[in-house]
């Protein structure tokens, strides 16, 4: 049996959790057994879980567990796995999913494999995980009675495949005060900022070639005309040319626009980790050997400070 840890907001599972349920079905096709799920703080998940192939839902609704607490949630999952003995405990590779699972591993003296994208379940389990910000895969072998895995986000699409019914079983963990040492006191929900790097259909990115904070002016101007969001590589956020929240890359925003216009960016692997899901990439760079060009669909060889004003002029005239 595969047990899936599901995250939800107000009874609606999030996309990474639905992807994880979909992945669990392909895994169950190899290992046999059914899919069960566990979540905190909701009694109303069974219908949607059934649509995603879950035949039993373990609901943990203890009041003190509604606010996220990594250790308390992990202790609860550990006690549940001890009682129902799944072959796999699988979680989304989200911030909370990874954190809780590593705690479960520590509590169980077992290894955890985070950010998994493929599993070959045989006598030994050969697992592929993403490494180097998605730039490489890493193959590992695990030999444990319980596999503790988190799924790399967007490895599979969330797809429904309903089973006949999903039982609800209530589970009550035994917890101590110390398990709540790190518990969320409050959550500030983010407000919609309109044109965001994550949602804009065009994103313009600036790199070292922009040269200064003022140098972003021309990118902003093009951004306004194209209704594009403007971001920067880590060089620009580290030099204070651009706020960190505008960083595109491994340690910043991961974008997936219809068109990404990369200006004066060499194309380090850490930057590619943040923009590789763009549908089209246009590069403006003085260096025709820049690595960015080998990831791009279109290129302009030239100085962005000359090329972008010409593009603005051309759009205004057309």
């Amino acid at each position, binding site marked *: 049996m595969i047990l899936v840890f599901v995250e939800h907001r107000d009874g609606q599972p999030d996309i990474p959790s639905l992807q994880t349920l979909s992945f669990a079905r392909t895994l169950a096709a190899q290992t046999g057994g059914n899919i069960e799920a566990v979540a905190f703080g909701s009694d109303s998940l069974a219908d949607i879980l059934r649509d995603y192939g879950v035949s039993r839902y373990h609901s943990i609704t203890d009041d003190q567990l509604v606010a996220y607490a*990594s250790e308390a949630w992990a202790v609860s999952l550990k006690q549940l796995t001890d009682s129902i003995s799944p072959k796999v405990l699988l979680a989304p590779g989200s911030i909370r999913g990874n954190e809780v699972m590593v705690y479960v591993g520590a*509590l169980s003296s077992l290894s955890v494999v985070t950010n998994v994208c493929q599993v070959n379940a045989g006598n030994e389990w050969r697992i592929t995980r993403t490494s*180097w910000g998605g730039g490489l895969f890493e193959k590992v072998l695990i030999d444990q009675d319980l596999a503790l895995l988190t799924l790399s986000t967007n490895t599979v699409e969330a797809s429904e495949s309903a089973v006949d019914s999903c039982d609800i079983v209530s589970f009550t963990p035994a917890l101590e005060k110390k398990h709540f040492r790190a518990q969320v006191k409050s959550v*500030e929900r983010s407000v919609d900022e309109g044109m965001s790097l994550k949602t804009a259909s065009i994103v313009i990115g600036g790199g070292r070639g922009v040269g200064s904070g003022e140098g972003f002016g021309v990118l902003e101007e093009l951004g306004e005309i194209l209704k594009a969001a403007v971001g920067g590589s880590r060089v620009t956020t580290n030099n204070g040319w651009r706020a960190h929240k505008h960083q595109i890359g491994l340690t910043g925003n991961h974008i997936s626009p219809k068109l990404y216009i990369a200006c004066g960016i060499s194309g380090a*692997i850490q930057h590619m980790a943040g923009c590789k899901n763009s549908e089209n990439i246009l590069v403006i760079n003085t260096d025709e050997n820049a690595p960015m060009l080998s990831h791009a669909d279109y*290129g302009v060889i030239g100085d962005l400070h000359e090329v972008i004003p010409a593009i603005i002029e051309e759009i205004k005239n057309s």
Partner: protein
Amino acid sequence: MNVLVCIKQIPDVGGTIKLSDDDRDIDSRNLGFTISPHEECAVEQAIQLVKKEGGSATVLTLGIADSEKQLRDSLARGMNKGVLLHTDNNNWNANQTAQAITDTIKELETDNGIFDLILFGSESADRGNGQVGILVAHALDRPSVNGINGLEIAGDMALVKRDIDDGTENYELDLPAVFAVKDGMNLPRSASLRGTVMAKKIPIQFIDVEPDDTGIAFLKFERTPEQSKQAVVLGRGPEAAANVVQVLKTLELV
């Protein structure tokens, strides 16, 4: 306030990653080395906190002898002490790394008192397991939060912010505690020339370590499906503008 920051040497790969012949390592023969951006922010945070609160800031790494360079760089920025857990083998997994670091912290704390704060980078820029901080916290029986974006100290408490997909979580934890820091929490300083000279004089404590056995074995790296493309060059300089606009029209973006 005594702060420990754990960092990891990684090759500065640039635009493409070359693998060694056995696919078990990065071919780093022509590469420089660095640390993860998250870890640079952890180092900066420690320097700022110790400057404000007093105490000392220790930087620790587990790696080959050459990792001393990354310790020296952190010392040059303003960390006070350096510890190198020395090994010839670069393929340690998260459990092995956490075990060696935990053992060392216990020894260091017996000699010098506890670390009020232990900081890690949110995940290393190479393997990106994101596990060691939590494993060390658990082994030391201290609270932890992984991937924090804000940290303030108020007496014996740490006030912590962490961004999640749809908002920001607020935490209040008792010290001592363990945190893994995200890039963007501060603007890391560069090493000054004076700092670099001073750092050379600081003794680094070398401790030889060996990995324990665990239930997980690293096999090899594998390339992701070839994503290398041949970009269509639309032109050189400002003259390319008309072709760029044509592309925007083809993609129905203007």
